[in-house]
């Protein structure tokens, strides 16, 4: 059937597929170099800079932006905001894939993937924050997998198993919130060990609180940002409920993000005040800090508020994108830009192109997986067999 073959080729050879294909190919080549020639061949890491963008971006930013899963499920199942129900599955899927690829990216940094279970099987490093982070991420990834399983189970038609998992929704949500609170804050706490390396404006004994609060902002903004992209790319996949709930969701989450940003701005100010670092604000690093604090915390807080007051959905969605960039900037500031700030420029870290290549490769894989799942499973629509059922998740 030549006609059908031409259609399939046309369908496969879209600009997105071609670019994604090239990125995946380059990513696989860099992966081979990384695991055969080591970190030295693919990164600019050194004894001074042992953590690069694979930790600063792939892990810290990845975990923060994957917070939409626990934020949305807590809003819907714990706080009873059922009007946002349609956002749960896409948010949980993004969270699950986000954490999954955080773990994948971690392999590039630590190497020897077969040793991944060692901390849980061979030796429990109970005095280490990294152990706590590792354990929480492993458990939360399992929780997110279980939270997402109703979608593939509905797709496969396993009704009994699906109904069993659905009964666990509340337990899984509570477990997810507890685990997220622990590891989101612990990722900030990791930097408490390096007071002499992190610039005083970013270093604070409140770093765990900053990381946790900003993860809520990241989660809320990411759900809106991802919803905006999904509406463009998968509009035809969405049922009436998803389409109808999107605008109230944007308004509700925009309001929540604005209020949490206001709280975050205040605790950041209190952080400066408690350490009496006001004088550092007039230094070059201080100006950079103010750009982050005013440009990516106070400014989006105000924009969200204006957007909510005026019911300006475009403004709220723009602000969500802006805030996502703000979260990326914050995590990179803490882990890369303001880290080792006292070293001369020649000893500072700048990522190798292959490090950037792997990060782009990981993001591309995440998008491809997301697209594959959303195109097949009931994520943006309710499965007809379970429509309007009370226990629906």
């Amino acid at each position, binding site marked *: 059937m030549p006609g059908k073959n031409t259609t399939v080729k046309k369908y496969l050879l879209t600009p997105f597929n071609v670019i994604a294909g090239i990125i995946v190919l380059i990513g696989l080549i860099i992966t081979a170099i990384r695991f055969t020639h080591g970190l030295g061949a693919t990164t600019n890491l050194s004894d001074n800079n042992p953590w690069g963008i694979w930790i600063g971006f792939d892990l810290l930013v990845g975990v923060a932006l994957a917070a939409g899963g626990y934020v949305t499920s807590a809003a819907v199942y714990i706080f009873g905001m059922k009007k946002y129900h349609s956002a749960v599955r896409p948010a949980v899927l993004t969270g699950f894939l986000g954490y999954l690829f955080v773990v994948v990216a971690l392999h590039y940094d630590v190497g020897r993937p077969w040793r991944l279970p060692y901390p849980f099987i061979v030796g429990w490093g109970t005095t280490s924050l990294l152990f706590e982070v590792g354990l929480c991420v492993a458990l939360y990834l399992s929780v997110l997998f279980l939270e997402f399983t109703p979608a593939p189970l509905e797709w496969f038609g396993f009704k009994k198993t699906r109904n069993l998992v659905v009964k666990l929704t509340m337990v899984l949500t509570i477990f997810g919130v507890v685990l997220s609170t622990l590891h989101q804050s612990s990722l900030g706490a990791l930097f408490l060990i390096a007071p002499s390396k992190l610039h005083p404006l970013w270093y604070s004994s409140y770093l765990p609180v900053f990381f946790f609060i900003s993860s809520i902002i990241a989660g809320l903004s990411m759900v809106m940002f991802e919803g905006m992209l999904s509406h463009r790319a998968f509009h035809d996949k969405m049922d009436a409920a998803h389409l109808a709930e999107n605008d109230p969701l944007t308004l509700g989450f925009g309001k929540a993000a604005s209020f949490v940003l206001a709280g975050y701005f205040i605790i950041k100010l*209190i952080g400066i005040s408690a350490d009496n670092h006001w004088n550092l604000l007039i230094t070059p690093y201080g100006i950079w800090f103010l750009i982050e604090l005013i440009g990516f915390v106070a400014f989006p807080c105000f924009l969200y508020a204006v957007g909510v007051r005026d019911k300006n959905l475009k403004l709220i969605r723009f602000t969500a994108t802006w805030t996502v960039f703000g979260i990326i900037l914050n995590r990179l500031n803490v882990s890369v830009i303001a880290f080792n700030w006292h070293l001369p420029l020649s000893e500072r870290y700048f990522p190798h192109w292959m490090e950037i290549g792997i990060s782009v490769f990981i993001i591309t894989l995440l998008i491809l997986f997301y697209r594959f799942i959303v195109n097949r499973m009931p994520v943006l629509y309710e499965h007809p067999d379970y429509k309007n059922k009370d226990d629906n998740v």
Partner: protein
Amino acid sequence: MENTFYTLHDFLLHSESITYILMLLSLLGILGFWFFLTARDEDK
């Protein structure tokens, strides 16, 4: 802002005094911000 502190007590007295004033202002500020944020809510 660039004060020299000779004792921990001096430092804490200075920084915590500013922090407490800031916290009070923040509490009032966030209350005002909440009213600004919810002023046009439909249930009002």
